[in-house]
C-alpha cells in the first residue's frame, strides 16, 4: 500500500483549503494512505531565502527531519512547499558541512536530518506509482466533452535538478491525468509553463495581472472549459484575481480554475462538496453541468 507523511503547508490550511479537501478525498478514494506531519512548520517559501539563506534551508530541514524520524516519504501538494522541501533536501545531501551545522541546531529538538526520505508531489505518485492504468479502472464518471487546459506553473517542475518528475519545458503529468479522466486536453504548448507572477501579486500587482491575463486569454483562445493547476499561488492569481483582471483590461473572461485533485475527484464520482468546489471564486457551474450529462 502507498503510504506517505502528508505536508499540507500554510496555504492548504487556509486560502487553498479546497486543495487540501480534494487531495485528502482523492487519496482516500484511491487507497493512498496519508497522515499529516506532526507539528510541521512553514517551508519558508520564496520569503526565507530572500531574508537569510541559512534559514531557508534550516526551516524545511526540521520538516525533513520529522519525516526521517517517521521513515516515510513526504507528500506535498503545494507547488511551493514541494519545491522548497526538495531544494533543502538536495542542498543538504550535497553539503555535509551544512548538514552538520543544521543538525547541531536540530539536536535541541531531538531531531536529526539524515537525508533518507524523498519529497514527492501527489501528481508524481498518482501518475508514476499508482499508475494511470489503475486510475482508469476507477473512473466512475468520465469527463467526456470537457476541454481542460493543463497549467503547471513554475515551482513544481523547475529547476529539473531537484524537481525531477516531469519535463521542465514540456511537462506531461497533468496532460496525462486530464486525458485519463476522459477530458480533451488543450494543446497550448509554452503557455502551460508560463509564470503567473506568483508573489508579485503583493509586490507589483500590475505586472502580475498582465502575466495572469495572458494565460487566461490563451486558455480561452484554445477553447478550454477550465484550467487545471497544482499550485495555490497560481490558483490565487488565476481564480481570485480573474474578476479584477476583467475589470482592469475590460475583458469578459470566464475560465474556472480547478486543482488537479478536484478534476480527478469528479471523475472518480465524488461530489462537488466533497471536493471543496464551493470554495473557488469563478463558478465551476459549466464544469459541473458538463459532468452531470
Amino acid at each position, binding site marked *: 500500500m502507498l503510504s506517505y507523511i502528508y505536508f499540507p503547508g500554510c496555504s492548504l490550511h487556509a486560502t487553498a483549503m479546497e486543495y487540501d479537501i480534494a487531495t485528502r478525498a482523492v487519496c482516500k478514494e484511491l487507497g493512498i494512505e496519508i497522515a499529516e506531519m506532526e507539528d510541521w*512548520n512553514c517551508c519558508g517559501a520564496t520569503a526565507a531565502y530572500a531574508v537569510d539563506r541559512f*534559514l531557508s534551508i534550516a526551516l524545511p530541514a526540521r520538516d525533513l527531519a520529522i519525516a526521517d524520524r517517521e521513515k516515510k516519504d513526504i507528500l506535498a501538494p503545494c507547488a511551493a512547499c514541494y519545491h522548497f522541501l526538495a531544494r533543502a533536501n538536495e542542498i543538504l545531501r550535497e553539503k555535509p558541512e551544512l548538514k552538520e551545522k543544521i543538525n547541531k541546531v536540530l539536536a535541541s529538538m531531538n531531531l536529526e536530518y539524515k537525508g533518507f526520505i524523498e519529497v514527492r508531489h501527489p501528481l508524481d505518485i498518482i501518475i508514476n506509482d499508482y499508475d494511470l492504468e489503475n486510475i482508469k479502472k476507477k473512473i466512475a464518471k468520465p469527463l467526456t466533452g470537457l476541454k481542460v487546459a493543463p497549467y503547471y506553473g513554475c515551482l513544481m517542475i523547475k529547476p529539473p535538478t531537484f524537481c525531477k518528475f516531469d519535463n521542465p519545458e514540456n511537462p506531461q503529468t497533468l496532460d496525462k491525468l486530464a486525458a485519463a479522466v476522459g477530458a480533451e486536453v488543450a494543446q497550448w504548448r509554452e503557455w502551460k509553463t508560463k*509564470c503567473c507572477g506568483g508573489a508579485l501579486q503583493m509586490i*507589483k500587482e500590475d505586472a502580475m495581472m498582465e502575466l495572469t491575463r495572458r494565460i487566461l486569454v490563451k486558455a480561452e483562445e484554445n477553447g478550454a472549459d477550465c484550467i487545471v493547476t497544482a499550485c495555490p499561488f497560481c490558483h490565487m492569481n488565476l481564480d481570485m484575481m480573474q474578476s479584477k483582471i476583467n475589470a482592469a483590461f475590460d475583458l469578459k473572461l470566464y475560465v474556472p480554475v480547478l486543482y488537479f485533485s478536484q478534476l480527478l475527484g469528479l471523475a472518480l464520482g465524488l461530489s462537488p462538496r466533497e471536493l471543496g468546489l464551493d470554495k473557488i471564486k469563478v463558478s465551476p457551474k459549466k464544469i459541473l453541468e458538463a459532468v452531470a450529462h
Partner: protein
Amino acid sequence: MESEKAMVTGRTIKREQFDSGFSKLIEEVAGTDIYACYQCGICSGGCPVNFVMEYTPRQIIRMAQLGMKEDVLSSNTIWLCASCNTCFTRCPREIDLPEVMATLKSRAIKEGFPSKIMEGQVLYKTMVENMKKYGRVHEIELYMNFARKTGINKLVKQLPMGLTLFRKGKLKLSPEKIKSVDQLKALIQSAKQVEEGEDEENEEG
C-alpha cells in the same frame, strides 16, 4: 586600462569603484559560479518579468561580476524576480540565478539599501517575522502588518479579495501556532548567528 566602460549602464566607471569582494560574497552565499556567465542572454529572453525590470537578469550578472554593488542592490530587478526558475532551467552555464537574486535581496535588506520596490522587502521580512512567531504563516496578520508598513491604500485595494476569501471560509481568524515554536525561534536565532559568523569570515578573508 584606467577605466572600463560598463556596457550595461552606458556609464564609464573607474576600476577602483568596483567592489571585488562583492561578487565573491554573492558566489559564496548563492553557491553558484557567476563568472561562468558568457552573456548569452537566454535568462533575460525567457524571464517573464523582464518587461518591468530596470536591468535584465543578464545585466545583473555582468554588473555583479564587475562588482557594481550599489547599482545591483538598489535596482528594482532583484525584487521583481518571481523565483520562477526559467532562467536557471535554461542557462547553458548552469548558473543558479534565482539563488543569486535571493542572495542579492538578502544583502540589500542586511545592508539597508533603500528599495525602489519597498513592497518586496516588506513582504519577505514580514513573512519571516510571521513564521518566527507562529511557525506557520497567518495570512490575516501578514496582510495587516504588510499594509501597516506599505500604506493603508494597499489594504483598501485588496479588501474585495479579502472579503471573498473570508466569505468562502478560507481565512483563519486566529493563527495556528506550532507546539515547538520556542525551539523554532532558537533555530531562527542560530541561523542568524551562522550567517553573521560567515560574514565575519568573509570580511577577514
